[in-house]
């Protein structure tokens, strides 16, 4: 059918299709509230009216009970390592250089972990139950973002026993239950 002789390598076998859609993203009510506090240097959780557990960052509900949460609870600057991974590949759009630690951290006063970076530590000595504290950016750089906390660094405190992880109160952990 074609007048010119075209070799099969010249045939179209693939096309580049840009699919870019613009959205006006809205943080949910609970997330908005949480980020406004983070903007002021505070990490807040929400307590479930059913089971009493404290969620952080709160999403406005207790997923276990399916109940809305509204009671705000201030959380500590200290946290416990629930688990972690040493990541050897870069995160897109993030300047951090591998290898770095991504840890599941339970802040004191909360009953659930969130994910954050750990630094100022020897990667090989990071361990489950380890105590850490938040290192914040300078106040003038604070925004509505969890990375106002630059990372968490180890504390010189005794480890939290496994069964106590996720149950450390706001008053902290001094090696005594």
């Amino acid at each position, binding site marked *: 059918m074609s007048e010119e002789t075209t070799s099969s390598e010249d045939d179209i076998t693939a096309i580049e299709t840009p699919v870019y859609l*613009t959205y006006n*993203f809205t943080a949910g*009510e609970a997330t908005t509230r949480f980020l406004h506090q983070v903007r002021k240097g505070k990490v807040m959780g929400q307590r479930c009216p059913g089971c009493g557990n404290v969620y952080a960052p709160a999403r406005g509900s207790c997923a276990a009970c399916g109940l809305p949460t509204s009671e705000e609870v201030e959380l500590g600057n200290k946290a416990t390592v629930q688990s972690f991974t040493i990541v050897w590949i870069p995160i897109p759009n993030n300047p951090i250089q591998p290898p770095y630690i991504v840890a599941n951290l339970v802040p004191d006063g909360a009953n659930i972990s969130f994910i954050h970076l750990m630094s100022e530590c020897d990667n090989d000595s990071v361990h489950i139950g380890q105590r850490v504290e938040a290192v914040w950016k300078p106040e003038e750089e604070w925004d509505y973002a969890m990375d106002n906390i630059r990372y968490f660094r180890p504390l010189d405190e005794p480890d939290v026993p496994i069964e106590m992880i996720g149950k450390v109160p706001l008053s902290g952990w001094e090696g005594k239950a």
Partner: protein
Amino acid sequence: MSDLLRQQFVLGYTYTRSTGPVVGRFLTELRQRKIVGTRGDDGRVFVPPMEFDPVTASALDEFVEVSDRGEVVSWCWISEPRDSHPFDEPFAWALVLLDGADVPMVHAVAAPEAEMHTGMRVQARWSEEPRGYITDIACFEPEVTQGEG
């Protein structure tokens, strides 16, 4: 309730789509300013070529070259083009039945609104450098017959 946090963001990727033999053949022909369709099991010619018959689901592989001219069988007028649309100026989307095809295709028509009508004859306006995309047909425009302007 604290002030709402809103932020615009773009969700997107540039997908690499492998075409397979039928779509690939169509796009390859487009690059040479030719339009082909496939013949369905009931003899209908589909343009752009369907890979699978819409009734029997069997793979279609008989290609038929059709004209780059045809007739508008339906149209709508875009008085306020969206950002994603191919033109900034008002234009029409149309179902265009190409000569030699039995099934109309959707594409844009660039013509004044007053000239748009069902049954109007149109011809493909090819993009300057066809690259093997549906947009190699930049749009359709009113047909110019020999002797005319």
